[in-house]
């Protein structure tokens, strides 16, 4: 076995499931080595010792691994279950991000309508506070997510990928600038914990879109459009509540709304393996967002302590609930692996 073969086998061994490897690995390796062969003994000898699979070969195995491990309904049952759970996770996260648009629109409409605002908020100040570039990136982010959500629903995978990438790009650029500042000026990062956790969360959602591959069926759009409509009817009230800085705004924020929805879902949704797996996948998102809110709310001393307590309570409640769900998911998966022969 030469180095090139060893490297390719390591790639395949790392990514593909065991039963698939048993059936196909040797033949894949033979085909790969044939492909790499140039016919010139000297070059071939060099490649066998120093060659490695190029990026396209690696990507093709990654794509195959995603198709096998996050399978469509025709795949291996456990892989099909995980595939469905990751697709539901991705859609739920896209929906949550998409709802930031009606929230932003409601706030803009309230400000431009000239209705009552707290004394410390100057509508002209809000309107002129941001540069044109900031305004553009703000709206690209707000519009990108609903476009990505609808594109996934209606089977336009590449549009979804482009729209979500565009939506996360401004935050990514801002993050790179912050890191560069930190490295050059040796100053601590200016970004809030919520900024960083949102960036990680949104990047994870983009990666999760890979679960919508060629052999996975598109979702049924009807229930998701209904959820979008309900969300779009509820969140404007939250947006205005935040704007008015009412005491309730300390408690009702996008993060608290997401956390409470998740907590309610953990109690209300039927305990199917799919539901439990999806909720388990969503748990780290909820915990990290609540945790970041807690860090941001607890650190500045001039903030009212009310939202720090809320964030703390939600973080702990989510973590405790996630632990229970994690145990339930392991039990359900074990039950599925050893089905009751009589039942």
């Amino acid at each position, binding site marked *: 076995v030469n180095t090139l073969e060893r490297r390719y086998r390591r790639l395949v061994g790392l990514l593909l499931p065991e039963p*698939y490897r048993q*059936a*196909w690995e*040797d*033949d*894949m*390796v*033979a*085909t*790969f*080595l*044939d*492909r790499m062969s140039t016919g010139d003994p000297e070059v071939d000898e060099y490649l066998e010792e120093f060659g490695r699979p190029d990026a*396209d*070969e690696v*990507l*093709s*195995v*990654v*794509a*195959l691994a995603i*198709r096998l491990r996050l399978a469509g309904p*025709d795949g291996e049952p456990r892989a099909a279950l995980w595939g469905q759970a990751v697709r539901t996770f991705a859609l739920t996260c896209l929906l949550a991000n998409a709802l930031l648009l009606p929230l932003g629109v409601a706030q803009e409409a309230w400000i431009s309508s000239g209705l009552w605002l707290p004394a410390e908020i100057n509508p002209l100040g809000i309107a002129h506070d941001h540069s044109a570039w900031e305004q553009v990136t703000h709206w690209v982010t707000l519009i990108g997510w609903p476009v990505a959500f609808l594109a996934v629903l209606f089977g336009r995978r590449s549009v979804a990928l482009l729209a979500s990438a565009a939506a996360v790009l401004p935050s990514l650029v801002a993050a790179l600038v912050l890191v560069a500042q930190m490295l050059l000026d040796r100053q601590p990062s200016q970004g809030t914990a919520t900024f960083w956790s949102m960036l990680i969360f949104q990047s994870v959602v983009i990666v999760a879109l890979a679960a919508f591959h*060629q*052999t996975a069926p598109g979702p049924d759009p009807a229930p998701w459009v209904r959820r979008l409509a309900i969300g779009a009817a509820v969140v404007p009230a939250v947006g205005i509540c935040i704007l008015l800085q009412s005491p309730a705004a300390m408690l009702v924020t996008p993060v608290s709304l997401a956390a409470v929805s998740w907590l309610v879902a953990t109690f209300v949704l039927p305990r199917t393996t799919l539901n439990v797996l999806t909720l388990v996948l969503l748990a780290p998102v909820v915990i990290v967002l609540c945790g970041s809110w807690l860090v941001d709310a607890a650190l500045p001393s001039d903030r009212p302590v009310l939202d720090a307590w809320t964030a703390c309570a939600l973080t702990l409640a989510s973590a405790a609930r996630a632990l229970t769900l994690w145990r339930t998911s392991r039990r359900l998966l074990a039950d599925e692996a050893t089905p009751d022969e009589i039942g």
Partner: protein
Amino acid sequence: MTEQAFFVLTALGDAPRHGYGIAKQVLALSQGRVDLRVGTLYGVLDRLASEGLVEIDREERYAGRLRRYYCLTDEGARALAREIARQRANARVASARLRARRPAATGDAS
């Protein structure tokens, strides 16, 4: 049927071939457009095998390694024939439209 699956079935249309042989044939048949990497090729092959359209013909030892040859099943040949008929019908309709093309100003509103 995806374009990749169509070309893999076509590559096996006349004779059984091993993995690399299929990839080379697909590249030639598609005039360089479809270059199947190994992961992609086996993704297509295993799907076609699970649908009963291709099967393993034989294994042969070559340069110290086993090469597996794949062939079209009868069902695979029928599926390819159906796809050819579909593409031919599409091409016929499109060609007829193109032959009947008139300048834009005289086009039918319907």
